């Protein structure tokens, strides 16, 4: 009977799917904590390139501030801000944001902004851009990402905060203008957010869940 054979196939498929799901769930349980710890360690290590020329005390991670979505920063999930202090005085803020309009999925960026509004560095945390083309946004693969250092909303002016192909100031990566455009836009939007909320960012208590005044 055709019917019973379909039933048998369905049951076999369902059983194997259940076993496979259990296997993945088990591995996830086993590795979850280590992966989170690794990512935290990687984040702390990668804060450095986004803070070039900034002197600060330790404890950057403890100053973490979560900005719940929706917010004016790039990305649709919660954004994270690390406040960097030297003694009591704020010196910079680090934003973990996502550029969602890249070529393949979200590009997770760490954007460092000095208290005076200058970019202290941009670092790519994760991305799925094309290997060999878009992946040159990584600092290890090219110097492209360094061109933001020292820039601010006044330099260049806001209509020049674009890639050269769109009539702006910034170089695009050959063969990866979609990626380049997404990163430039995310950095610009982060600067605009910082400019509009500077006081709120530094005065909010560390991760109390309270929102930064928009």
């Amino acid at each position, binding site marked *: 009977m055709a019917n019973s*054979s379909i039933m*048998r*196939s369905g049951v*076999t*498929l369902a059983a*194997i*799917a259940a076993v*496979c*799901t259990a*296997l*993945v769930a088990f*591995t*996830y349980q*086993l*590795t979850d904590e*280590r*992966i989170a710890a*690794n990512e935290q*360690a*990687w984040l702390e290590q990668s804060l450095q390139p986004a803070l070039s020329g900034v002197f600060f005390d330790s404890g950057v991670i403890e100053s973490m501030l979560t900005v719940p979505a929706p917010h004016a920063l790039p990305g649709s999930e919660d954004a994270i801000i690390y406040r960097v202090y030297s003694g009591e005085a704020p010196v910079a803020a680090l934003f973990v944001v996502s550029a969602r309009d890249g070529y393949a999925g979200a590009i997770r960026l760490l954007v460092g902004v000095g208290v005076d509004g200058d970019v202290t560095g941009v670092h790519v945390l994760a991305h*799925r851009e094309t*290997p*060999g083309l878009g*992946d040159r946004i990584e600092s290890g693969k090219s110097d492209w990402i360094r061109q933001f250092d020292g820039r601010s909303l006044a330099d260049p002016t806001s209509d020049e905060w674009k890639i050269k192909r769109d009539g702006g100031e910034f170089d695009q990566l050959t063969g990866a203008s979609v990626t380049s455009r997404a990163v430039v836009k995310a950095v610009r939007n982060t600067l605009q957010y910082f400019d509009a909320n500077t006081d709120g960012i530094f005065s909010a208590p560390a991760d109390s869940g309270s929102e930064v005044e928009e």
Partner: protein
Amino acid sequence: MTTPPIVDRFKTGLWYENPGLVQLLGLCPLLAVTSTFVNGLGLGIATLSVLVVSNALVSATRRFLQREIRIPIYVLIIASLVTCTELVFKAWFPALDRSLGIFIPLIVTNCAIVARAEVFASRNPIGSSIVDGLVMGTGFALLLMAIGLFRELVAMGWLLAILPPGAFFSLALAIAAKNVIDRRRQDKQANAQLRRPRQLGRLKG
């Protein structure tokens, strides 16, 4: 001269039916990640472990699988194993995971794995299938490492080797080298066969 079957199996996987050199399977990861020796080693080990376990699982389930649903089952098994491998790499080899990036999840698309499941594991007992996964995976991993090492060394003098076209040139060279070696061996054997009767004749005479 008899060689134990396990040695023959390794010769087959590493040389005569090397998945990369002869079957030309799994070229996408082979060409993409072999820019360094360490990357080749990392992806080689990841592929090898997925291949061994997938062969074992496919072989273990082969008796109660209906023919018409076998492909979706292979895909399910392989995709789950690759996800587990990715999690393990993220947890224990984070640096390697970052440098291999998307190519660990992309092991799913390595047709060498589906090919071994279909051609070998679905028709052979579990022990034999594990050995098959081991030898084929080792053959693939060694090729990845060899090309990675070659490109890394050559790139010191010739930058193109590290760029994507370099991968094609390196693979072509590797296949050419294998064919030259095979040809020489064949010639030698043929010569030996030609000579033997003549020598016998002389002895008799």
